[in-house]
């Protein structure tokens, strides 16, 4: 019997890709044998709990602003002394950066598990790689079929939006693994177009699922659902919301809830939220929510903004499944298209929906992950 090796190499803890790994892995178990593994450097079996741990939400970042009085002692120092200390800190920071640039960053994935349970997939088995990461080409020689699920192709199609280590791992994957790939699964036509440019086998586009029960909530807010990161266009959303706060009477602008996993290149976004005390209360951050929290937040929102790049459109599908109107950069039937980098137009679109709320839509009938797993196995059938 064919075995599916769910390869979680390079998957960031708490990310949408991690969520997909758990949901899809769980669903595949109903159809075939599934084993979780990662490549460090050989193929190593991981316990199912490692997958659950990967999908669990990491703690949210600290948005607390320290009291200004914290620097009471520093403020009593003469100005030239404070300036000299600042200069020392700045130059030492520059020196450390120069030293650091001479050393390669480490790959930030799961730490090696305690057991060294190496694995040898058999000929005909499927190696389902969630991320383009590292070298898996040698397994093809043993008759293993290599499949890219591209749960998050950002590191491949926009390396500048990825952690440097992830971009580096994707570059290795492209040169060493890509020539041996038998099937590519994409989750949107746009992602398929971007992946096709690499000369990979024609990507097969599957629709993902949204199937979590929704609870009601009375608060009135707009939700920006999706990864808090450069790829999630959070920088653009903050500028758009600032524009709304500038141009509209403040009491007419509902709070914006930023809900999603904290992704790469989010340091400056988090710093802005911290600096402004979350835009003086005009924004709230629900960082790294659990799946149930994420779902509840979507269901109770006035409408959903989903500025997603690559990925499988989790926020859009979940928003539509909750019956929320969606402004989305992920092409999905029923969602209204936006281009997040056109911030003025994005702000105009949001403003229109605030002033004239969109009609509530019928919740999209969600596809269960089991359906997705069945479709996946169908297209991968030899």
């Amino acid at each position, binding site marked *: 019997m064919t075995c599916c090796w769910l390869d979680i190499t390079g998957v960031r803890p708490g990310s949408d890709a991690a969520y997909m790994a758990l949901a899809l892995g769980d669903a595949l178990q109903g159809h075939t044998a599934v084993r979780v593994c990662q490549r460090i450097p050989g193929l190593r079996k991981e316990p199912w709990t490692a997958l659950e741990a990967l999908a669990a939400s990491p703690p949210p970042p600290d948005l607390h602003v320290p009291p200004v009085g914290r620097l009471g002692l520093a403020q009593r120092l003469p100005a030239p002394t404070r300036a000299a200390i600042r200069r020392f800190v700045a130059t030492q920071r520059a020196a450390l950066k120069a030293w650091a640039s001479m050393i390669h960053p480490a790959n930030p994935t799961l730490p090696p598990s305690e057991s060294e349970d190496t694995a040898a997939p058999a000929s005909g088995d499927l190696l389902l790689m969630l991320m383009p990461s590292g070298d898996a080409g040698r397994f093809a020689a043993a008759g293993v079929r290599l499949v890219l699920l591209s749960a998050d192709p950002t590191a491949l199609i926009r390396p500048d939006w990825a952690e440097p280590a992830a971009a580096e791992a994707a570059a290795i994957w492209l040169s060493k693994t890509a020539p041996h790939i038998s099937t590519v699964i994409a989750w949107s036509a746009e992602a398929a177009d971007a992946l096709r440019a690499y000369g990979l086998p024609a990507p097969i586009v599957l629709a993902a699922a949204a199937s979590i029960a929704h609870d009601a909530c009375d608060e009135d807010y707009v939700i920006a659902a999706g990864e808090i990161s450069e790829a999630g266009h959070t920088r653009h959303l903050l500028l758009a919301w600032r524009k709304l706060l500038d141009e509209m009477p403040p009491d007419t602008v509902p709070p914006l809830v930023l809900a999603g996993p904290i992704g790469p290149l989010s340091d400056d976004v988090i710093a802005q939220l911290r*600096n402004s005390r979350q835009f003086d209360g005009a924004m709230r951050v629900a960082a790294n929510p659990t799946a149930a929290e994420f779902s509840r937040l979507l269901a109770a929102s006035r409408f959903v903004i989903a500025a997603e790049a690559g990925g499988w459109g989790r926020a859009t599908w979940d928003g539509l499944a909750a019956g929320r109107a969606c402004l989305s950069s992920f092409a999905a039937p029923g969602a209204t298209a936006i281009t997040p*980098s056109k911030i003025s137009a994005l702000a105009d679109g949001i403003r229109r929906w605030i002033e004239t709320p969109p009609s509530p839509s019928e919740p999209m009938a969600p596809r269960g992950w089991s359906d997705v797993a069945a479709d996946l196995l169908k297209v991968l059938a030899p």
Partner: protein
Amino acid sequence: MSRLWVDVSDLFGHHGAFSRPSGIQRVIFELGQALAATDPDEARIRFVRASGSAYLPVAWRTIAQLFLSLTDEAPPHQPPLTTALQLQFEALRALLAIPQTLRPPTGEHGTPAAMERGDTLLILGAGWSDVGQVARLAALRQRHAIRIALLVHDIIPLLRPEWSDPIYAARFRQWFDGMLPLCDRLLANSAFTAADVARYRRTQGLPDCDIPLIRLGDGFSQAGPGAEISHGINRPYALVVSTIELRKNHALLVDAWQALLARHGPDAVPALVFAGREGALSHDLMQRLHATKNLGGHVILRPSASDAEIAALYRGCSFTVFPSLYEGWGLPVAESLAFGKPCLASNATSVPEVGGDLASYFDPLDLGATIACIEAILGDPAGLAAWEAEIRQDFRRTPWSHTAEGLLAGVA
């Protein structure tokens, strides 16, 4: 005869913390130099720096030497190990310099400035970095009945707190709220800043007041023709002069250049030169640049360019870009025009006041419009040449001496 005392404490503070001047320090120096030229005997205009609860007189030549040390030649490009060792050495030197700051400063007279009734103390710089300033000014005002004038560069930390460290923003608010009732005269560098200040005064329950505009000068005096050097870039490039920080919106240009390179190919797209050090909220952008190897070499960083090198970069560029999201003025736009170079500038806040009809503007919140604006230039070399000729013919420089005259009239 009443005197004008000009507070230059900010230059000394900046010198302790940074190796290059920012826009405000440049304004202090250029304006101070122009003011000093109107009164070489220092009979009417004197310069002072804060020292504890008093102000000490400082000779202009000391100030000039200090500023020149911020604008001297940059070290040549070198291997990473050498850079790291040099930076580490510089850090150690900075550490050892801390105890020296507790001794009395040199290059200034030891007795406090003899301010008298009717004199004016002019604050030109970033006064919020001088924590004791408000208390010192209140005491001076009460003791000597002097007048206080403040040139406001911007109040961005009050209006866009997300771009400032909260401690810095709180200090700015405390300083500005303390200064407003003390100031007999507020001056602004643009109509936009004046309007921001007027709005803020109203929110504080303060009455409206006249806020004269002081048109800042163009260009910088330390980089005349005699200082011309090679910029070392052997292909066409667009130039951005400013600290690399989120507010300055360099990320928009990185996005635009990525799109341009994908559409037109590397040979058809000029390089993009960022002349300026890394500043606040630039971490994510620098990581993007690192990940793409500076867009395959298309982005060139000049973090510690001297004035002479910046002048050379202006002279050698095809055009300049200034995509800032928020400004009080926009000195690089004026500098670009002063060097005869076309400038594609943000249409936000004060920037159109600087470039007038001679710059071309785009919405810094619209990537598509920005790309279209750049593509229009790249596709029309004759139009770019005609634009450059128009600037050379029509641009009327504002010498810093005019700024000084306006300032003297404004504080009178």
